[in-house]
């Protein structure tokens, strides 16, 4: 397996642990999404079940998708490719397994505390202080393991995926701590408008400094490997990496364009939102030119197929995001389901697809056996692709209805009946995504534990 011949074959326990974590929590997270979507069409379905009230289900869904499904999925590949790229073994599988356990424990506390109504009321930063500390600890453990692996490397050159995952983890540990205001354990917040500015600085960095770098890391690993081609340009990867860090971190205030925050800050956020085209295209051109003429190889590998589709979603979600920061566009899109559509393209279509792609790419390599079922993975691919496109179309339509109706002077209440049919469609698409998560978990479990496949 590895070129490192000094010890027995690596067990990849950490990578396997994060695969299982991602598969399991994807199922829970998508169920919570489905439940929330159903409550929006049948609000009395869960009447008087306090811990299932929509306002508690929604943050559970969002946080589990971010920290339960996508991030662990991306980490599972990282725990495979970082040692491989550095021609060494993971610094400590034991520490890795402890990290996986701590991570899952943190996720359980997230679900229980939010269901019980322990919330700090700030999006992506709802968790109370002890859980914040647990999450920071988990990120720190990941970072220690990775950076120590880097320290013991036998390959002098750091490949771009390693930059992304190291920077992503350390920056997220810092912005998570800042964003959750961990020096104020009781409220976990600042006061007034600065709290909104900090919250959206952090909120946007969950995508900019966690999901995007980790996804880019996986794409930079999987696509050249699957294509058996060298990376198109080292310069572009350098440029993409540093410009991402500089530009993405400036744009959080585009969530607050109609709020009394300083105008200069709004200008920065709008200008940099548009400038996001630079890091995005630097990354995409690099990946797409690497894959040029090799789409057959990508199509042949289910992991690479997921990842490549994720990069296409990244193109759309980023261009859309740049547009949405323009005040004239935001007059219509702000505060409504257009943004929810955007979030689903980004987190499920881009980061989620790449997370699953990395996971399916490494599964045969960490188990030493072929994937339990290529068909199931392919089936899941199509369910998710159809689901993401469906979400986008349906929620964008609802968003346009809402935004334009408000601009036309109609009250929120009057628009509810117009949204209903789209909400029904959205919930049925949620059922598709939830089903795909069950298939995915089954496939992962069978691939790791009960895999009848020949040892390759």
């Amino acid at each position: 397996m590895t070129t490192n011949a000094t010890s027995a074959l690596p067990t990849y326990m950490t990578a396997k642990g994060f695969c299982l974590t991602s598969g399991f929590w994807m199922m829970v997270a998508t169920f919570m999404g489905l439940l929330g979507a159903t409550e929006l069409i049948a609000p009395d379905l869960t009447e008087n079940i306090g811990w299932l009230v929509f306002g508690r289900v929604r943050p559970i869904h969002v946080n589990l998708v971010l920290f339960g499904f996508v991030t662990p999925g991306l980490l599972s590949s990282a725990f495979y490719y970082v040692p491989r790229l550095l021609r060494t073994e993971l610094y400590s599988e034991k520490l890795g397994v402890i990290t996986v356990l701590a991570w899952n424990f943190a996720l359980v506390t997230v679900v229980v505390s939010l269901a019980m109504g322990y919330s700090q009321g700030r999006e992506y930063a709802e968790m109370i202080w002890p859980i914040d500390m647990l999450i920071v600890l988990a990120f720190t453990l990941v970072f220690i393991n990775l950076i120590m692996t880097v320290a013991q490397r036998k390959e002098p050159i750091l490949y771009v995926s390693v930059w992304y995952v190291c920077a992503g983890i350390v920056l997220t540990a810092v912005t998570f701590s800042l964003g959750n205001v961990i020096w104020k354990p009781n409220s976990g917040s600042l006061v007034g408008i600065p709290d909104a500015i900090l919250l959206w600085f952090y909120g946007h960095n969950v995508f900019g400094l966690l999901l995007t770098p980790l996804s880019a890391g996986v794409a930079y690993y999987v696509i050249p490997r699957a294509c058996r081609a060298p990376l198109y340009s080292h310069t572009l990867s350098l440029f993409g990496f540093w410009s991402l860090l500089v530009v993405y971190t400036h744009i959080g205030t585009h969530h607050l364009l109609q709020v009394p925050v300083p105008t200069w800050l709004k200008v920065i956020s709008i200008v940099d939102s548009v400038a996001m085209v630079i890091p995005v295209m630097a990354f995409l051109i690099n990946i797409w030119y690497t894959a040029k003429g090799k789409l057959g190889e990508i199509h042949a590998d289910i992991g690479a197929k997921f990842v490549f589709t994720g990069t296409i979603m990244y193109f759309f979600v980023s261009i859309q995001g740049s547009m949405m920061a323009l005040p004239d566009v935001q007059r219509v899109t702000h505060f409504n389901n257009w943004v929810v559509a955007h979030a689903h393209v980004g987190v499920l279509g881009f980061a989620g697809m790449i997370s699953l792609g990395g996971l399916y790419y490494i599964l045969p390599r960490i188990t030493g056996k072929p994937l339990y079922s290529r068909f199931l993975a392919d089936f899941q691919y199509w369910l998710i692709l159809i689901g993401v496109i469906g979400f986008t179309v349906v929620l964008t339509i609802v968003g346009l209805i809402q935004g334009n109706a408000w601009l036309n002077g109609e009250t929120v209440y009057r628009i509810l009946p117009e949204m209903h049919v789209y909400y029904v469609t959205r919930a049925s698409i949620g059922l598709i995504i939830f089903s795909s998560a069950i298939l995915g978990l089954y496939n992962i479990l069978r691939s790791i534990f009960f895999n009848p496949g020949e040892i390759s």
Partner: protein
Amino acid sequence: MKMTPKAVVIGSLLILATIVFVVVFLPYATRIQLPSDIFRDRTAHEADGRAIYIANGCVYCHSQSIRSIDWGLGAERIAQAGDYIQDKPILLGSERTGPDLSQEGGEHPDDWHTAHFINPRYTRPLSIMPAFAFLGMDDIKTLTTYAQGLGLKHADKRIQRQRFWKEKAVRAYESGPEGNVKWLHENVPEGWRNLPNPYPTTEAGLARGHKIYQDFCLGCHSPIGDGMGPAQPHLNPPPLNFTILKDRGVSGGILYYQIMNGITGTAMPYFKRELESEKIWDVGNYVAVYFINQTDADTEPKGIDAAYEP
């Protein structure tokens, strides 16, 4: 450029530190701490209600951020930084599935909120908000206190107005149907009182009225107009039983005015923002025809005939 571990980790952290200084610290250091003209401190009871609001994720559907572009939407006031200086955390929200609540205080009397929290469809039949009866009456009262304080000094003025009129409305209700109807009619400006519904009763008009009644009215006034809708047990004065209006001098104009303007102090809200003129005439006539069994539609004086009349 050679990417060493130090370059990656320390370089990234330096970039982040610089940007945090610019986009987080500078706005913090230059923040506005002056209270706005409507600012007042929140009471302890209101703060308790706010905690319930946060625990139940109300913020995911209700913004507290009247935007600079909301003037055209009927907003009475655009949010200012000085409104939020005690908000910890700030609850601007990111979606507006339900109405913005920045100026919610005093829009309705407390008993409307009680019925609405127990099940929002009791007062708003099309609402998709969850029912909050599971909180128990104490927490519902506390949450109501918070909602009634939203808007701060402006909310206080509206609450005073609600209390002033509630006392009169309750006294009128307790004086019996005769006195109640008399009080209700007295408080409609005279021009409206003498105004019959200028439009004819048509099948299409009644169908429109029926739809509007179902979407807006039946939670309180009930499907048969007797005022015994599911919200009724929670409201004081209770919703009007329309049948008592017969032969007591009701007019199309009175119905129109009261639907448009609401009856402050009671749970009857104003509908002028939600219903266009035709819909108000139609739902008024629906009530007159089906529940009061007495309509003045299409009687004189009605001025120039409407162009669409068949």
